[in-house]
């Protein structure tokens, strides 16, 4: 057995949808369990009161990265076959900023919005309605954005290809960054908790 299983055709495209549903349900379940079904918790991230989002996301990144590296190193996973979203640098920076703004205002990102909706929260439902409205408007006005949408094309590129730094070194640096981030996040949380406590006195 060699991974990625789909590329090596261990299952059909139809069956991949079944797997996608299972992974999706699992993803949603753990988002909800981490408290990400609540806009209060998510929005608190942006006011530095609760850094859970940061910690969970960075933990996921590090876990996946270490897993991919060692599976690839052992030869169980052919990393050259993993699909990478092509990089279009300018539209993706702009898109990221728009998503971030929507995240602060709405209290959800699309994934957590779905998790929230499935637990029956009304704000989650409204949020997802907004997501679909946005998709519709974007789709209908796509001809206006088309040129910008494909600008800054860099292809399916990784940090390794961009910088020539070996995968292992990049992994080590990202791990250091994550650990530093976690320590920083704890400090920030404590600082603001103290400040809030003083303010409420």
């Amino acid at each position: 057995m060699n991974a990625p299983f789909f590329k090596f055709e261990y299952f059909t495209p139809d069956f991949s949808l079944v797997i996608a549903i299972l992974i999706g349900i699992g993803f949603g379940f753990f988002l909800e369990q981490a408290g990400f079904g609540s806009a209060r918790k998510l929005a608190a991230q942006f006011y530095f009161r609760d850094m859970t989002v940061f910690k969970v996301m960075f933990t996921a990144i590090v876990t996946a990265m270490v897993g991919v590296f060692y599976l690839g190193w052992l030869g169980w996973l052919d990393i050259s076959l993993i699909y990478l979203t092509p990089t279009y640098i300018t539209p993706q920076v702009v898109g990221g900023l728009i998503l971030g703004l929507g995240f602060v205002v709405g209290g959800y990102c699309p994934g957590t919005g779905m998790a929230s909706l499935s637990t029956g929260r009304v704000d989650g439902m409204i949020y997802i309605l907004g997501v679909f409205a946005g998709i519709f408007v974007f789709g209908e006005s796509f001809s206006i954005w088309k040129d910008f949408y494909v600008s800054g094309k860099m292809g399916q590129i990784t940090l390794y290809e961009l910088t020539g730094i070996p995968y292992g070194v990049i992994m080590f640096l990202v791990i250091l960054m994550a650990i530093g981030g976690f320590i920083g996040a704890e400090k920030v949380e404590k600082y603001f908790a103290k400040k809030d406590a003083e303010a409420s006195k």
Partner: protein
Amino acid sequence: MKLEFSKANAPRYLAVFVIILGVIGLFAGDIKNNASKNIDNKELALIVESKVDHITVDDLADWLIQGRADFRLVDINEEKEFNDYHIPNAENIKMTSLLDGGLGKNEKIILYSTGGIHAAQAWMLLKANGYDNSYTILGGLDAWKDRILFPSLPAGSSAIDSINFEKLKAVSRYFGGSPQESASAAAPSTATLKRELPKLSSSGGDGSSATPAKKKKKEGC
């Protein structure tokens, strides 16, 4: 009490564990990226026999008109031939530099050469190196010219053929070709007919095809 102690320290243990993994990674060396794949002879023979590795020029023309960009169109011909004419959006990659990393194993790669033999050889090379999503154009650039750029209606064709030919003519004009109208007439001297290759813009295939592609799309809507 003991349990509580270890629970509180779990993140710390995890951090230490992941740092150890990171340090090992520093010295682990690189991931075997280009580990050559074992060729499954039977599988390869089956693919060749069932012709699933072929893409017809009609399909390719449709995809180009639709503006699809989910594939890489690779011209294996010599640079000079490529500069004379190439299918819009094609990129010129030499046989010797096929495996140099310009192409991704996770990409859909469509190869062509003038007659198709070179492309087929390139296909074998890619396939043997794990570029599983590779295809060749049936008949190569010759087929593209015969069927897309300079389509002709053979004498004695049925009414349905004539209707289909109207569609082919539209496709041909889209790619800057010239349909061989009078080929259907009695004169069989097709060789004397004008078969002038469309001119390429100096910027290469990319720019020249992008503008008409958009127009066509709007028509469709």
